[in-house]
């Protein structure tokens, strides 16, 4: 019995002793660098959805590990469908014997210029990142408001107080590798938070050219009506770009 306990203790402590992350994936996905150095990313994106049809987007990311185990991500997107999106994420992390626990506070603002309205989401979530799997769960609230709201009538804004937020991502390589590929299922991604019954399928990949440069290729597929049991294609996005680590 005593031997078993000792063996179990040794097994649990082994990853701490053996593993030293050199080049991590960013937080729980592949963007940025998880280690404690600043980085910026620039991505170009082609997208299509059935409402806005074809569009081209430019995405900018900043990854800022402000102190040890606390990261701030900031990102901004201009979409040629006339939509501006910005988000800030505060992410404390907690190293565990197995994997890394993280918590995220995210605010996402989508200025839908074409429809003169805004979509504001605030999310709280927790996640657990292993080498090959990342899981994240939480909730978010949404406020939809028109920029032309008449304050002297019954004109209203819309609130959705609680939506479940989830993300499951599977990676094919450990984080220390110089390349990685992932597939995921989530109702949130960098530029949008969807209702809980509207999942998105995600694809991500990265390759580290050297210590400073990393290239990315990502994709997203949104199928609407899955939980109507009448699924049909709605949207797809492909984005490519690079990250620079300072």
């Amino acid at each position, binding site marked *: 019995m005593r031997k078993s306990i000792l063996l179990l203790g040794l097994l649990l402590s082994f990853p701490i002793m053996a593993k030293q992350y050199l080049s991590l994936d960013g937080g729980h996905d592949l963007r940025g660098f998880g280690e404690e150095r600043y980085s910026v990313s620039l991505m170009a994106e082609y997208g299509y959805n059935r409402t*806005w049809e074809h569009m081209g987007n430019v995405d900018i990311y900043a990854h800022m590990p402000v102190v040890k185990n606390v990261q701030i991500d900031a990102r901004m997107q201009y979409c040629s469908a006339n939509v501006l999106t910005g988000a800030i994420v505060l992410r404390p992390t907690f190293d565990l014997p197995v994997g890394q626990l993280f918590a995220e506070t995210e605010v996402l603002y989508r200025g839908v210029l074409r429809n003169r309205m805004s979509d504001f989401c605030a999310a709280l979530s927790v996640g657990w990142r292993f080498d090959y799997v990342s899981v994240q769960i939480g909730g978010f609230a949404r406020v939809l408001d028109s920029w032309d709201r008449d304050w002297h009538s019954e004109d209203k804004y819309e609130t959705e107080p609680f939506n479940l937020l989830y993300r499951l991502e599977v990676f094919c390589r450990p984080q220390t590798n110089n390349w990685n590929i992932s597939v995921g299922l989530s109702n949130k991604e960098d530029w949008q938070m969807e209702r809980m019954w509207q999942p998105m399928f995600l694809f991500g990949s990265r390759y580290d050219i050297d210590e400073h440069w990393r290239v990315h290729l990502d994709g997203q597929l949104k199928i609407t009506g*899955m939980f109507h049991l009448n699924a049909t294609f709605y949207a797809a996005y492909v984005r490519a770009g690079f990250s620079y680590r300072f």
Partner: protein
Amino acid sequence: MLSVLFATCNPNYDMIGMFNGTSPEIADRFQESLRYNASVPVVHMQMPEEYRLFICTDSHIDSTHYALERFIRAYKADTNPHMCLYLGDLINAQAHFDHADSILHLDGVMTSRNDTVFMTCGNHDIYFNQWHIWQQLYGSSTYWFDTYTGTEYKKENLLDLYICLDTAEGTLGTDQMKWLRKLLNEMKDKGYRHIIVFTHTHLFKQDNSQGHTSNLSMEETYELTHLLTDAGVSCYLCGHDHSREVTGYGNVRYITVDSSTDAEPYPFYMVMEVGENMTYEFFRLFD
């Protein structure tokens, strides 16, 4: 896991449809609806200036149809209803259209009055590739009609415009959105008293009452809410959620009507009084 396993084994759920709908997709259904619309004249309903509108949704007919029958009897017995809107999910799964449809055409002494029902299709109606049955029975899932008063259909006599949309897959699709945009643009200055849009799927998700059913995507929610507000639409009527919800965005009132299925302990329907103002009331089908 157990609920997924249960759903997979349940013959009422079209599980293939979770990955690819078994009926023709929205672009094809919309084109078929337009072809049907072109083959029949546009409906202009003659009305008194104030009239009553009966609204029912989500009967999910399986083997029984008590609630729907009660609704139709209430509709036919009323003195000033003129028409009824049915907001989709008439049947639950497959092989029930015959007897569900027979209820909508209740015969007997009341057949000659209050016999107009405007239908839209819901996701359950097109499970198991049943769109063509639905279409054979009801013709079109995307159309418009209007009401007028007096003896002649002319601009001065116009009352209200009704627009039916097909959202059975949780999307309007590209072509239907363009059609709606063009229609509202043409109609918004014609002098209609109210514009009422009715469909199956609700736009907002204020709570978790809806179970595992989905809304329209966010991009479509932005576009549609803006379009309806901009065109001066008075009311967006829908079902799908099974729970009542009345909310507003812009100056549009969004009303989700309770389901009228026999499986619910308290099935409801809605009656709307349409005049210069619109008021509504919900009625319980079983005590």
